[in-house]
């Protein structure tokens, strides 16, 4: 059993607590993990520590699940990595590219797994699409169109570009693997549109945001989550809200996911990477790449025109 320390129960302001809402139940449900300690909570029936340094000194956990508030997050990740632990980092892994680069460097030095919780790339439809694209099913991809629209729920005080934007940016990166060089962004109401120019002339476009709640979804559910990949030999339309059954009764309509959820699938990959002694399928470089796109999008929103990605100090290493 791989032992897990839960470090922090904060998020991007408001009531956001992914540790309690998402990771804790997923670790508990996973046969390969056991939660052995917590920093910042004393109601979980495991030893509680006042701070991360104390916990790392005393606690035998191999994995630290970091959900500290974003301003403390990157430092905590680096601390845990330097202590030789594996890390699952709530997203965003950091608020700035600089912090994300520091985490990536620490992970490279420690040789342990550092996984940003970009769990949407583990959606079953996305995983199979990624494999099919990589196998050449649609030929050479030249365009991706993506929609990531969450219906209702609590708005993020830091904005949904920071909160939700990383997910589809990361999925697009996972699907086509071409770095982003230029970003044009436009905000309209609840939706931000990201128009990305990648290497090889590939373009992608992402709509992302938190829209009005809808009667058929729980607050915060995904109203639209899809990717269209156009390639030299075909088109793939990926609806990431699949696989789902639809239940219609006299009291309402709901969808029932037919397989493991995205967080469970992410933990399976985390466990496989740790026990296999290999990097995880998604690492700090992916977090850094996505954060750099978000930063460029912010600059583009201010400038009202496309902007290049900032020069990448990590370029030679990736």
């Amino acid at each position, binding site marked *: 059993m791989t032992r897990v320390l839960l470090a922090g129960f904060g998020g991007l302001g408001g009531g956001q607590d992914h540790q309690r809402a998402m990771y804790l139940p997923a670790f508990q449900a996973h046969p390969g993990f056991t939660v052995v300690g917590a920093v910042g909570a004393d109601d979980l029936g495991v030893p509680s520590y006042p701070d991360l340094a104390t916990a790392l000194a005393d606690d035998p956990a191999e994995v630290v699940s970091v959900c500290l508030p974003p301003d403390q997050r990157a430092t905590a990740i680096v601390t845990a990595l330097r202590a030789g632990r594996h890390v699952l980092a709530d997203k965003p892994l950091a608020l700035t590219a600089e912090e994300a680069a520091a985490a990536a460097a620490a992970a490279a030095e420690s040789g342990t797994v550092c996984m940003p919780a970009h769990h949407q790339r583990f959606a079953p439809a996305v995983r199979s699409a990624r494999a099919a694209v990589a196998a050449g099913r649609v*030929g050479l991809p*030249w*365009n991706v*169109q993506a*929609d990531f*629209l969450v*219906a209702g729920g609590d708005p993020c005080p830091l904005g949904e570009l920071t909160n939700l934007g990383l997910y589809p940016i990361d999925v697009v990166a996972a699907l086509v693997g071409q770095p982003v060089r230029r970003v*044009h962004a*436009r905000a*309209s*109401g*609840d*939706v931000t*549109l990201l*128009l990305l*120019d990648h290497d090889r*002339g590939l*373009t992608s*476009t992402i*709509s992302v*945001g938190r*829209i*009005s709640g*809808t009667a058929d979804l729980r607050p915060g559910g995904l*109203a*639209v989550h899809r990717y*269209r990949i*156009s*390639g*030299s*030999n*075909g*088109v793939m*339309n990926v609806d990431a809200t699949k696989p789902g059954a639809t239940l219609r009764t006299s009291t309402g309509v709901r969808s029932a996911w037919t397989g493991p959820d995205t967080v469970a699938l992410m933990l399976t990959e985390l466990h496989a990477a740790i026990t296999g002694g290999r990097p995880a399928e998604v690492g700090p470089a992916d977090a850094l790449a996505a954060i750099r796109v978000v930063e460029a999008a912010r600059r583009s929103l201010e400038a*009202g*025109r*496309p902007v290049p990605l900032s020069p990448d100090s990590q370029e030679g290493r990736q």
Partner: protein
Amino acid sequence: MEHHSASVGVLVVGVGFIAEQHTAAIHADPRARLVGIVDLDAGRAAAAARANGGVPWSTDLAEALARPEVDAVVVCTPNHTHAPIAVAVAEAGRHLLIEKPLATDVAGARRIAAAFADAGRVLMPAHTHRCYDYARAVKEGLGDLGRPEFLRLAILGGWIWPDWRAWVLDPARSGGHALHNGVHLLDLVTWWTGDRPETVYARGRKQTAAELDIYDYLEMTVGFAGGATALCEMSRGHRPATYAARDVLVVGEHGVLTLPWDAEASIVTDESGTGLLPPAGANGFAVQLGAWLDAIGGAEPLMTPGDGVLAVAMGVAAERSIATGEPVRVDDVLTEAGV
């Protein structure tokens, strides 16, 4: 335009690819009758005349326009000929339904609009998608969504025009793809939002062949004055060549409308694979002809000359944005063309 018959006598000018849709609509509407065919190619004009009940044909537009039974004209000639032909129709005092784009530049479009304003005749640019079932359903659905925030409209295909000689592939004659097909989408999202387009940011791709002079894949992002954004994709560059899909998504302040590629059509799997079987709803060309005849009869026009000028300006902005890589202000395009 005094005439003994109660129906509107319609002359069709240019009998290429799209004319048959218009003549079929004319035959199907009791308020209209086909009274002649004009085409520069005598053989083609004669063949079309024979196929349409032996109506008179000519290669001379002025001669045909002078005939008293001609009340109105449908023009479906190559795009670069629209301005001189349309002005001639206005000067002859006839009503006009003209294939899109109204012209290949803003100055030409304005010249046409002014000629019809002077003549006091109806000018309707054939932004046919406004007459399609899906577009009307979306327009109606927008009422429940409140203020629109984000719109997606994709019309994707793999069918490229016949070969290198097709005039549509020549930007000097078609105006480029943003003018030729792009205006359909640019006009439709403008009609849906009822808002004023401010900026166009576009990206283009020559997907089918590097040697193309037009962008067979277009992605045009329109920023509206009220804050909404519309993403329009127009493609003839998808594969396989048989691919045909349409997609609409609208996010409004009260919810979301989705009309995905598989929402309307039946899905058929046969020996050649899986394809779509579009529903046999209303005929958009018939609806369009009806709207034109209504306008000739004095009704509020579904598409105005101003809509045609604006769509041309947006198309020009899109082509320019692709060339510069920057967003282009629609007002700048309108202003530099003069008023």
